[in-house]
């Protein structure tokens, strides 16, 4: 038996430690440990509820927008505030564009190198690469010349010893299976993808005033003034520029990312058999279409024990079952006691004990729905939309199932998770543009309202802001008392997925997804990375310290 510890594991800045026990080439046990303390809730107590959205954006470096949205929805839910249509559309565009950006970066920059061998790309025939790329997409960037240029560049970098940064990747690992030509295609698109994640982020910035950390939310709407004839506001010129950015991003997602994903998935079909883990899922509906958050473009739902047919729909964000049954347990988390609390009563009292595999071993609490561990993320949303008969989702999923020779059950897997994220990006790119059309049409009717002015009243109010974020269901829980925040808890997607064992000893989704997976070489546990990265782990992007790791690199100390 061997014991493997990967610490930290995340590709984005982060502090996730994974321990696995391997026996006979298979993982037999696993522990997921968040190595950083997140005490945000402490900062929020006593502050003004209408400012919370601005603070909570600093939870994270990447998903700043999602926390802002959840937080503002929590206050609006608590006070029963309606949100004007223009504001819903503007928020929807930002949400969808943020998702597109997040998914592009996850696929190419945070997970592709688990499947793509950069060095193998050096052996590719660029002409054949172009043929393959053109056979799966009519995107204009897939020329032989383009691929040759990338390959030459790679050769120069390898010759100059400059690829050292990637050398800690697993090149030449026996589990790498793409042909040199497909590897070259993926590397070329890896570099190109940065241009499109940028366009997506620019679109968010046009509406949000700033990115990262949008500036345009207010309780009851947005602060994006609309006047089609005023150059200082959201006007026709800005709207047209937005459309251009969003269309280019959509084309990249639908003509490059999605076909690349299917090509890679086709070469790694065995990975539709590994990595299922916890098969209880939850997604909340997203993209409100009315002012009361009663009607949504994408449905939500709860699947228990992998039973997609028996899905329980979640119709809106006032769903009593979710609000009542989401709880957090701290038996194996570095907090006082071993209790289970509802987020409105949630506590954040640290109790660090070091890593105790049978005791407390993570800063992550263990969230539960109806007492059970739950996986959140794109598979949950895709399943909910598929079960509800959403035509676009059905068409995409059925197409992929038949192209790859799969069944719906294969979604419960490492590759299934990557697939669903790509399908979600495909859908998000369209939803962003649909909401832009709706916004323009609504402005054209003469409606220029973008916020319902809201005063925070005296008294006690409780609210929850649900949001289906790129990594899954996010919820912010607020208790307001006499115009101040009395309590605040965020139950984030990575808390659901990276959870340690709960009070019943049930494994969290990361942990469960590793058990049973093969490990070809315990000194190079590529298989562990593949599965964990498929969740898009992002534990503590809250910390960002440049770390020379104790070595004396300092040449000049000033002052």
């Amino acid at each position, binding site marked *: 038996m061997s014991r493997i510890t990967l610490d930290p594991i995340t590709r984005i800045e982060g502090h996730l430690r994974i321990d696995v026990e391997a026996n006979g080439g298979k993982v037999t046990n696993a522990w997921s440990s968040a190595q950083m303390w997140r*005490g945000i809730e402490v900062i929020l107590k006593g502050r003004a509820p209408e400012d919370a959205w601005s603070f909570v954006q600093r939870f994270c470096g990447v998903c700043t927008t999602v926390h802002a949205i959840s937080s503002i929805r929590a206050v609006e839910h608590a006070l029963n505030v309606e949100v004007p249509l223009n504001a819903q559309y503007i928020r929807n565009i930002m949400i969808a564009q943020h998702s597109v950006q997040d998914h592009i970066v996850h696929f190419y*920059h945070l997970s592709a190198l688990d499947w793509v061998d950069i060095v193998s790309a050096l052996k590719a025939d660029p002409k054949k690469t172009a043929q393959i790329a053109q056979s799966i997409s009519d995107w204009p960037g897939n020329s032989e010349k383009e691929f040759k240029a990338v390959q030459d560049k790679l050769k120069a970098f390898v010759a100059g010893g400059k690829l050292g940064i990637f050398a800690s990747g697993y090149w030449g690992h026996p589990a790498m299976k793409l042909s040199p030509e497909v590897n070259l295609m993926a590397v070329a698109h890896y570099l190109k993808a940065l241009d499109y994640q940028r366009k997506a982020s620019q679109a968010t910035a046009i509406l949000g005033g700033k990115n990262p950390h949008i500036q345009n939310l207010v309780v009851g709407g947005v602060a994006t003034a609309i006047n089609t004839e005023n150059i200082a506001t959201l006007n026709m010129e800005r709207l047209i520029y937005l459309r251009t950015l969003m269309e280019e991003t959509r084309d990249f997602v639908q003509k490059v990312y999605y076909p690349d994903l299917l090509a890679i998935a086709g070469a790694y079909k065995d990975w539709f058999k590994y990595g299922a883990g916890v098969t209880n899922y939850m997604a909340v509906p997203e993209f409100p279409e009315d002012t009361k958050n009663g009607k949504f473009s994408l449905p939500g739902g709860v699947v228990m024990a992998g039973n997609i047919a028996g899905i329980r729909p979640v119709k809106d964000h006032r769903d009593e079952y979710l609000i009542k049954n989401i709880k957090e347990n701290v038996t194996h988390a570095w907090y006082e006691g071993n209790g289970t609390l509802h987020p409105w009563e949630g506590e954040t009292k640290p109790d660090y004990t070091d890593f105790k595999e049978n005791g407390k071993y993570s800063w992550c609490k263990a969230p539960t729905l109806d007492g059970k561990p739950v996986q959140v993320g794109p598979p949950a949303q895709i399943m909910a939309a598929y079960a509800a008969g959403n035509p676009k989702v059905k068409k995409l999923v059925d197409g992929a199932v038949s192209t790859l020779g799969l069944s719906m059950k294969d979604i419960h897997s490492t590759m299934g998770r990557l697939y669903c994220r790509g399908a979600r990006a495909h859908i998000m790119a369209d939803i962003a543009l649909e909401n832009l059309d709706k916004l323009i049409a609504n402005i054209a009717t003469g409606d220029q309202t973008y916020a319902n002015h809201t005063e925070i009243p005296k008294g006690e109010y409780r609210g929850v802001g649900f949001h289906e974020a790129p990594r899954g269901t996010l919820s912010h829980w607020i208790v307001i008392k006499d115009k101040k925040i009395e309590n605040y808890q965020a139950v984030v997607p990575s808390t659901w997925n990276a959870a340690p064992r709960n009070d019943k000893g049930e494994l969290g989704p990361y942990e469960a997804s590793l058990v049973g997976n093969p490990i070809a070489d315990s000194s190079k546990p590529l298989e562990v990375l593949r599965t964990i990265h498929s969740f898009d782990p992002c534990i503590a992007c809250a910390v960002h310290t440049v770390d020379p790791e104790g070595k004396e690199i300092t040449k000049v100390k000033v002052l």
Partner: protein
Amino acid sequence: MQVLIYGAGNLILSDEGFGVHFVRHMEEVYRIPENVELYDGGTLGIMVHFKFEEADRVILVDVVQAKGEPGDIFRYEREDIMLKNIPVKMSPHQIGLQEMLLISEMRDAPKPDLTFFGIVAGSLEPGDQLTPPLKAGLEKVAKLVVEELNKVGIDLERK
């Protein structure tokens, strides 16, 4: 010449937010000419590669884990940041500043001059205020940045 002053960090972990506090400090104290951009980059990493690709000169301000007392300031140039001088991170392919710069090079993007001022943090506890040595560091780093800009012919006036 387009100059980017990039403040990185997390505003709600006290000194971790130094870069962001710094950007705000500069906005308050100095008149910033049009070709100098102050950018609150939060903790974004690779998602802001384009800001680096668009500038001719980048001055990055962040906290750094180096030997020293809270408030000590260190200066690094591009080559110090690249891998041969900063050891491999523990995580395979973890994307940080080095990777971001390398990927930009692979994309044939223009290579801006880069200077990084790193300050040693005193506290990374939750909180939205800097500790006193880091608070004092704001004006010290500002002075260094002003000198840096002088070298390329940009004078910053105090408001």
